């Protein structure tokens, strides 16, 4: 039968499974409800605005509305404005297009008591102001849910306000810098042409003054960041890039003022603004990537509960997580997220620990087992005893560690610019020495100053301005062509120096999802039945079987199953035309009276019809293609390779043996991975960490270079420095080769420009440098540096292919 689109969400399904009403088709009751609601409210123009965009079907939400009116919640998220109105910041889930934003705003505007509602489409964040006498927050959330979206609060003072302020400050500085440099450039053109064709001193002065007026705000307002950076560098006794930029720009500025007022020599205001503008734009990109990380962090925090159910004298009470004490008894319901660490005291149930260990399979917890915050209780009501308070719990420490790393990291990176630091110190020393020499010998202060400053001017912008950026730029471009994204140029240098590679197992070395490696059919049956059954489950094993069936069978029809029951961590059962279908592991089969006693190192999935097994699948997490070769090549570069995983030792060993890793650390919690990296760093190692999940995020943030897989979680990607878009282990090897080659080019460039400067600087020191010589020497040294950097393009990355 033909596929039709749902009138509300636009997703297409086969016509026979749709709910038909008049001429409309709906994929579910939720979509139907929302459609009628919108029509009744006169908001049906939403569908014209929506166009062809597909939405998520409007599924009914869990009933947790009362939590929004609790006192603890109010204290944490709601801000009471001066005029007595309440304000909250929400993240709205399910926004796909501008029509969704329109609809949400419209509905909120129509609701009584809501004074203000504005939604940002880019990050799905909303600000709502309401009158608490007219409407309760729970009602507002319910309204948003009733039209098929979901909302949860976040605390903007946590991170966002700071990040936005920082970003805006940078943006303003850049605008001023760009304005100044664009205007100075066209004045400079007049000046240069005047220099070669002759210009009256009077005109020259006017142009000089105009440049001076434009350069001043650029240097002191836009360039403030570099002065600040140089000051911190000075305090830590380090000459960094900021020192050179600020001292070069400032001295050129002072010299230009001197040349302008005494009418001797040329002014360099154009160089001043160009240096500031270019370096500032580079820094702004860094701030932008930080903003994104903050958005993802907010969504983790927003989804954590603020209250837990505590059992006291057999009575249940909701208390805020801050006031939970050690040894309190806490009750968990299915679907609830654990926020406080503890030990199970009654009941048993399966827990989703994927955000902690990276493993997708639920873990069954029995009495006295440890319950970790961050995991999700899947299927039963259990009670556990708190062993830690809220601030000592795992989830809280993960979030605060991440917060710290996001705000801290760039400062660590800044100190890495060692090579440029030495160079700038040397140039500054030479300039000072020249000045002292000329003053003491010649006795004329002015000549000594001009010569001293000309040393800096001739050396600064070109040698350093180009030596590092040119090489890294080409290195980064080459990497991007090979699907490796370096977020910042400086990371190439750090990666080149690395001597330790830590790899996560699931999702990094392996695909991260089980796929069918072997299968055995015992008797013929309708494959569509199995397909329909595995489609009802979200379990990774079911998904693996589903993917296998889709690959093998071109045409799979849809069958409607009845009485679908999902037993977490075990399997699925369903009925169809008096047939009982069972799909799951051996334990599930035995529980249903089917004898199954096979042993396998892989995960087994059985499919039984009416009590008889008809098909058996063996699934295993497959190792990514080329992992073994890539690891061998990386080892050949002299890098130590280790594996860090949250999985148990047996499966960790199996994978490690296959890819040739000898050092394995298994059963590690997120913080353990980070402390392993930290310990290695204390030994003096430069560590590269590769991971993909939230569980790797802290270790990624701790490592010198963090590499994330392209389909990893948002948090992992945002804390990392390098992203592998093609997720191939051999890209790690390529990244190593490229960074090592680029680093070599940087060193060569610095050497070449030093050589060049060792010829031009003595000339400047001796006082022979005229503006023409300076201009020539600048372009010539630039050409050499550019030419040498271009050689990076000839690096061979396909070594792994040739050998294998």
């Amino acid at each position, binding site marked *: 039968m033909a596929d039709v689109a749902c009138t509300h969400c636009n997703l297409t399904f086969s016509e026979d499974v749709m709910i038909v009403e008049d001429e409309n088709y709906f994929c579910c009751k939720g979509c139907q409800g929302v459609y009628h609601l919108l029509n009744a409210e006169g908001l049906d123009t939403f569908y014209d605005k929506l166009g062809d965009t597909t939405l998520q079907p409007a599924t009914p939400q869990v009933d947790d509305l009362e939590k929004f009116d609790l006192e603890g919640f109010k204290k944490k998220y709601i801000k009471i404005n001066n005029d007595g109105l309440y304000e909250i910041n929400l993240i709205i889930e399910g926004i796909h297009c501008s029509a969704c934003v329109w609809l949400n705003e419209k509905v909120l*505007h129509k609701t009584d008591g809501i*004074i203000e509602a504005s939604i*940002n489409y880019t990050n799905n964040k909303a600000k709502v102001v309401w009158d608490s*006498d007219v409407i309760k927050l729970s009602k507002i959330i319910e309204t948003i849910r009733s039209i098929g979206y979901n909302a949860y609060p976040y605390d903007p003072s946590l991170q966002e306000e700071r990040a936005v302020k920082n970003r*805006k400050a940078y943006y303003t500085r850049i*605008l001023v810098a760009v*304005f100044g440099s664009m205007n100075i450039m066209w004045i400079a053109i007049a000046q240069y042409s005047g220099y070669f064709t002759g210009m009256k001193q*009077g005109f020259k002065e006017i142009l000089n003054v105009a440049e001076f007026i434009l350069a001043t705000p650029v240097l002191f307002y836009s360039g403030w960041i570099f002065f600040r950076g140089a000051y911190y560098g000075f305090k830590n006794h380090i000459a960094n890039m900021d020192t050179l930029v600020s001292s070069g720009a400032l001295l050129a500025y002072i010299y230009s003022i001197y040349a302008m007022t005494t009418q001797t020599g040329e002014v360099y205001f154009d160089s001043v603004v160009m240096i500031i503008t270019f370096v500032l734009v580079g820094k702004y990109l860094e701030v932008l990537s930080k903003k994104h990380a903050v958005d993802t962090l907010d969504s983790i925090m927003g989804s954590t509960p603020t209250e837990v159910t505590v059992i006291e004298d057999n009575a249940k009470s909701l208390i805020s997580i801050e006031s939970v004490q050690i040894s309190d008894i806490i009750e968990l319901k299915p679907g609830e997220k654990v926020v406080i660490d503890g030990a199970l005291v009654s009941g048993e149930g399966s827990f989703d620990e994927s955000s902690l260990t990276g493993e997708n399979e639920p873990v069954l917890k029995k009495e006295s087992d440890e319950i970790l915050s961050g995991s999700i209780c899947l299927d039963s009501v259990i009670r556990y005893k708190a062993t830690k308070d809220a601030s000592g719990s795992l989830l809280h420490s993960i979030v605060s560690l991440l917060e710290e790393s996001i705000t801290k990291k760039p400062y660590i990176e800044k100190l890495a610019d060692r090579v440029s630091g030495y160079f700038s110190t040397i140039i500054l020393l030479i300039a000072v020495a020249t000045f002292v020499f000329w003053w003491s010998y010649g006795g004329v202060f002015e000549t000594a100053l001009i010569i001293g400053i000309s040393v800096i001017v001739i050396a600064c912008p070109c040698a350093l301005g180009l030596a590092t950026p040119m090489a890294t730029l080409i290195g980064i471009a080459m990497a991007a062509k090979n699907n490796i994204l370096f977020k910042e140029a400086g990371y190439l240098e750090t990666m080149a120096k690395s001597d330790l590679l830590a790899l996560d197992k699931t999702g990094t070395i392996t695909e991260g999802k089980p796929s069918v490696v072997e299968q055995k059919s015992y008797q013929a049956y309708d494959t569509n039945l199995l397909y329909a059954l595995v489609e009802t489950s979200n379990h990774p094993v079911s998904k693996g079987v589903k993917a296998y069936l889709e690959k093998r069978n071109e045409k799979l029809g849809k069958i409607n199953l009845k009485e679908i029951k999902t037993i977490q961590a075990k399997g699925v059962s369903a009925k169809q035309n008096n047939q009982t279908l069972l799909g799951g592991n051996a334990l599930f089969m035995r529980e249903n009276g089917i004898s199954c006693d096979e042993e396998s190192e892989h995960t087994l999935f059985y499919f039984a019809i009416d009590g008889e097994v008809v098909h058996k699948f063996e699934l295993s997490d497959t190792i990514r293609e080329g992992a073994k070769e890539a690891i061998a090549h990386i080892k050949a570069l002299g890098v130590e390779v280790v594996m860090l995983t949250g999985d148990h030792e047996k499966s960790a060993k199996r994978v490690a043996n296959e890819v040739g890793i000898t050092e394995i650390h298994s059963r590690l919690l997120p913080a353990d991975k980070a402390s392993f990296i930290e310990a290695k760093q204390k030994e003096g190692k430069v560590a590269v960490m590769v991971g993909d999940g939230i569980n790797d995020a802290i270790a990624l943030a701790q490592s010198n270079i963090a590499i994330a897989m392209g389909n990893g979680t948002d948090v992992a990607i945002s804390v990392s420095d390098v992203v592998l878009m093609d997720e191939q282990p051999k890209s790690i090897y390529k990244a190593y080769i490229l960074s090592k080659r680029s680093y070599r080019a940087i060193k060569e460039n610095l050497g070449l420009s030093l050589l060049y400067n060792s010829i031009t600087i003595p000339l400047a020191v001796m006082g022979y440098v005229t503006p023409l010589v300076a201009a020539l020497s600048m372009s010539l040294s630039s050409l050499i540096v550019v030419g040498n950097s271009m050689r990076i393009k000839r690096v061979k990355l396909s070594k792994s292919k040739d050998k294998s």
Partner: protein
Amino acid sequence: MSENIVILMLGVSTFLGAIGLIALLWGVRTGQFDDQSKFIDAARYDNEEELRDAVMMEEKKKKALKKKREKSYKPAD
């Protein structure tokens, strides 16, 4: 061309440019560019109804604030 004319040209053009820059900076500071797509959508969905909506919201705010004031006002006994 006299020097005064050059001064005038440079001065006027820089001044006009500076006004544009200040306007842009004001826009950034007041958050008018925070959501790029909304900027465009405002033009796409601009019609009489949206205007009415905005007026309605404004009135609602006025009313709520008035009510709050009345409530907090306590007449002397």
